[in-house]
Each structure stands twice: as C-alpha cells, then as structure tokens.
C-alpha cells in the first residue's frame, strides 16, 4: 500500500486550516452581529429619531443621511466614471497618455480613504465653500469610488462585441452614433451593476465623511443638501467609542451595525442578481 507523504498531509492540512479560518472568521462576525443586533431591530428602530442623548430611540436620521450621501456619490461617480471608461475603451489610442490615465486609475484606487477626506475638506468644504454637508461628503465619496466605477464600466464596454460597432459604422453611423445607439444600450446594465458594488462600499465608508459633513447628533432630518447629516457608519463609530454611556448604548450600536451590513449586502446581492440575469439574457 502507498504511504501518503507526511509533508503532503501536513501541508494540505494547513491549506484546510486556512480555508477553515476564513470561513470561521466570517461566521463569527455575522453571528455576533446578527444575534446581538437582532433584538433591537424593529420598525420603530428604523423609523424614529434618537432620543434621550441617543440612549434610546431609533436611527432614522442616520439611514436617511447615508441614503442621501450615496445618491450624491452615485450622481458624481457614475457619469464621470462612465465618460472616462467610454474615452478609454472607445476613443483612446494606445499611447503614453492612455497609459498615464490607466496608471492614475490604479493609483487612485490605492489612495487611503482618509486622504480623500483631506482632499474633500479643502476642495469642497473650503475652496468651493460648500461647508460641511451632504453635498461635500457625497462628492468626496464620489471621487473615491471613481476608479471602481471606471473599471466596472470599461469591463461592461469590453463585453459588447466589436461587430456591433463595425456594423453601425459600415452603415454610415458616425462614431458617436454607433456608441450611443449600438454600444451603450448593451453596456449600461453591466456598467450599473458593477457600479453598485462600488457604491455599497462608499455607503459603508466613514473616514472620508468624518470632516466633510457627518455629524455626531442632529435632532431633525436634513433640510437640504447643504445640511450636516448623520450616517450609519459614523453613527456606529460614535455609539461604540464616543458616546458618554458606551455600555448602555451597546445594543443600539449592534443594531446600527446590523442595519449597515444588511444595507451593504442588499446592494451587493442586488448587483449579483442583476449580473446573473444579464448573463442569462446575453446567453439567449
């Protein structure tokens, strides 16, 4: 009988241990948050204002704030990102400039989120004089998501067959006509699903909004895009480190964490389902 090598056994044992650790880590994370956050979650928690120095009540303003900021993020990031992707994939020629653009995109995705925060403070809060508000925070996050949006959009454009472009050109379409009528309609769904993933990350980000508009506590909903706001991730940070009665508000912190990851996962899941659907349509 063959004797299995001892190093093989140990080695593959380690690989199994690695995978096991990753899986266990996720299970612990989810189990802890779901089991301890579940008790707090109810309609009232979702649709009421915080009360009594945030020791009671709900997280409605944080939910609204995160929603509004993410909308601004999308409004800045999607058109700019798509435009850049269209340039790179449809117009740009392989040259130095093109390489410079691609290098910039890769580097932007590695810039620490707090550095985007610093940039946002100067550009939006001070120079453009918008103050700390939803608009400033949303645009800061919009810049942060830009590299992801560009990459996702270019991916979607690459999936449109070359023959659609050539066919349109051969019929006398101008370049823009061929892109607008025969490329974008088939690329936009893919662009959007890719973009949602980036937006979900933005919705969970804290560092870039720390100084650009997120507020500790505001007893009313934002009146306009020029108001400061409460946000789910920032609220979680406050409730777990900055509150005067940290242990008392721990359940609220857990509830906030659960709502935040539920939101992020819902966005991710939406994107995954949409992508799956798209793939099926393309197959048919």
């Amino acid at each position: 009988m063959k004797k299995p090598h001892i190093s093989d056994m140990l080695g593959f044992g380690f690989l199994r241990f690695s995978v096991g650790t990753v899986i266990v880590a996720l299970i612990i994370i989810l189990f802890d948050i779901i089991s301890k956050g579940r008790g707090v979650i109810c309609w009232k928690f979702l649709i009421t204002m915080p009360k009594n120095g945030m020791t009671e009540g709900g997280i409605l303003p944080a939910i609204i704030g995160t929603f509004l900021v993410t909308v601004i993020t999308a409004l800045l990031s999607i058109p700019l990102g798509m435009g850049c992707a269209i340039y790179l994939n449809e117009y740009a020629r392989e040259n130095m400039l093109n390489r410079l653009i691609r290098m910039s995109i890769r580097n932007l995705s590695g810039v620490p989120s707090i550095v985007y925060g610093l940039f946002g403070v100067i550009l939006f809060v001070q120079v453009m004089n918008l103050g700390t508000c939803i608009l400033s925070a949303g645009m800061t996050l919009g810049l942060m998501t830009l590299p992801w949006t560009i990459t996702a959009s270019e991916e979607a454009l690459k999936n449109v067959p070359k023959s659609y472009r050539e066919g349109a050109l051969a019929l006398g379409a101008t370049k823009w006509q061929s892109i607008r009528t025969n490329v974008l309609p088939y690329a936009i769904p893919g662009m959007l699903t890719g973009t949602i993933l980036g937006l979900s990350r933005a919705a969970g980000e804290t560092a870039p909004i720390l100084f650009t508009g997120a507020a500790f506590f505001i007893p009313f909903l934002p009146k306009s895009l020029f108001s400061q706001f409460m946000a789910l991730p920032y609220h979680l940070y406050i409730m777990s480190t900055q509150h005067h009665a940290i242990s008392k508000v721990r359940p609220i912190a857990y509830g906030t964490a659960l709502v935040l990851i539920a939101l992020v996962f819902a966005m991710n899941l939406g994107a995954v389902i949409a992508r799956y659907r798209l793939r099926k349509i393309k197959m048919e």
Partner: protein
Amino acid sequence: MGHSRFKEKMIHGLFFLNGLVAVIVLVGIFALLVTKSISAFREISLSQFLFSANWNPTATFVAPSYGIWSMIVSTFMVSLGALCIALPLGIGTAAYLSDVASARVREIVKPIVEILAGIPSVVIGFLGIVLVGPVIAKVFHTTNGLNALNGSILLAVMALPTIISLSEDALKSVPKSFEEASLALGATKWQTLVRVKIPAALSGIIAASMLGMGRAIGETMTVLMATGCALEMPKSFLDSVLTMTSTIAIELGEVPYNTTHYYALFAIGLVLFIITFVINMISDIILHRYEKVIK
C-alpha cells in the same frame, strides 16, 4: 455634413477631457497635500517631523512639537503584523481554492471571501472593541485589549480577500505543464505546489501582498477604534498605538483651519499618500513584469 463632423469632434473632445479626470484627481490630491505640507514645513523642520517621536502640537507652556516617528513605526507595526497573519492564511486559502477545492467548494468559499471584502471597516473596528479586545485582554491579561495586536488581527481580516483573490489568480495562471512535469518526475502534490507552483506564481503573490499592505497602511476606522490610540513609541504588540491615519481622524476635527497643526495633519496625509503610492507602484511593476513573462 460639415456640421455633423464638427459635432463628432466636439464629442470626442468632451470624452477626452472626461478621460483626464482620473489624472486630474490624482494630481489634484498630490498637489493639494504638497501645498498644505509646504505651509507646515515653514514652521517644522522636515527631519524633526519625520524622525522625532515627540508629537505635541497643542503644547502651551513649551513650544509645540510635531514629530510623527512613533506614528510611522506604529503604522508599519500594525500593518506588518496584519501581513504576518494574513499572508500564510491568504496564500493557503488561495492554494486550496486553486489546487484542492472541488468546483462546489469553490462556489461556496468564493462568495464568503467576497462577503468578507464587503464588510465596512467601521463594523470590523466595532468587532475589535466588542469581540477581539476582550479575548486579547483575557489571554494576555491586559486592561482592555485595544492594542497593536488587535489592530493587526482586524487588518488581517480586511486584507485577506485581496490577498486571496489575487494570489489565486496568480496560481491559476501557472501553466498546467509546469505542474504535470513536476508530478511526472515523481514529486508529490505538496512538493509540486511549494517548489514549482508557488515560486512560479511568486511575483503575483508578492504583488498581492503589497496591495494588501497598502490597504492596511491606509486603513483608518479599524485602527482608530481598536488600537487604543495611545501616543507613544510602541514596545510590543500589546501596547496601545496611534497610527498616522488615526491621528488625522482624531485631530482634524478639532484643530482650527489653516494653523500649523492643521497643516501638519496634511503633511501626515502626504506621507501616507507617498507610502501607499510607492507600494502600489512597486506591486504594479511586479505584476506588469509578471504578465510579460507569462506571455
């Protein structure tokens, strides 16, 4: 038809400008950090800023001091610690996925990795406080478990998805013939993995670790929440530490605009930007060369 040609040129021009947006933002960030830092370095000497561990910008009786050396050390300590945990686990998981796992297992593990990547950093930081901290406190008999080790563990969790997916890509792109040749020579599967496949995929794996490292260095919320934020030169992983990102996060909200202290925080931002930029460039070069070799 002259009109339509003009319109086409306009559209091309607009997209060209739009294409430059990434360059503009990157250069803009850099230029802004540099100008603000220059204002800081009018008051602070560069060598003192980088190599003195004395950070006391709000001193009232003595002259304020702006040394970030302990923050630099803390940042690298926490990040390298994270890498020490994440690298073996990440490569191990990647190797498992590429060499051992059946298609079905892969279909379960891959989404798990993606979900892990999607968890917001503030949630990870929160878990550092409520989960990891108490465990560390109990095991090592420290007061609260908010220290460098805690930060490293959390950052490891955050770096894992990047390391796993990039390493898996690297391992997968090793030509099948290498593996077959090794097996045909009588090497075991494990020997083949360690002596042939991993070395062949090494540059991809190194690039993956560098990217993971870059992420860890730039991460703010987890370290802010879980490392205790004590401004001192760390002596061991059980000390509370204050990283560069944490300092910015804590102090920027409290300083008046356009003071030396304010500018000094931008100078920290510049240091962070340069470190992550260099790390990204190196991993980029490694990956690029690697792609060429494979082709």
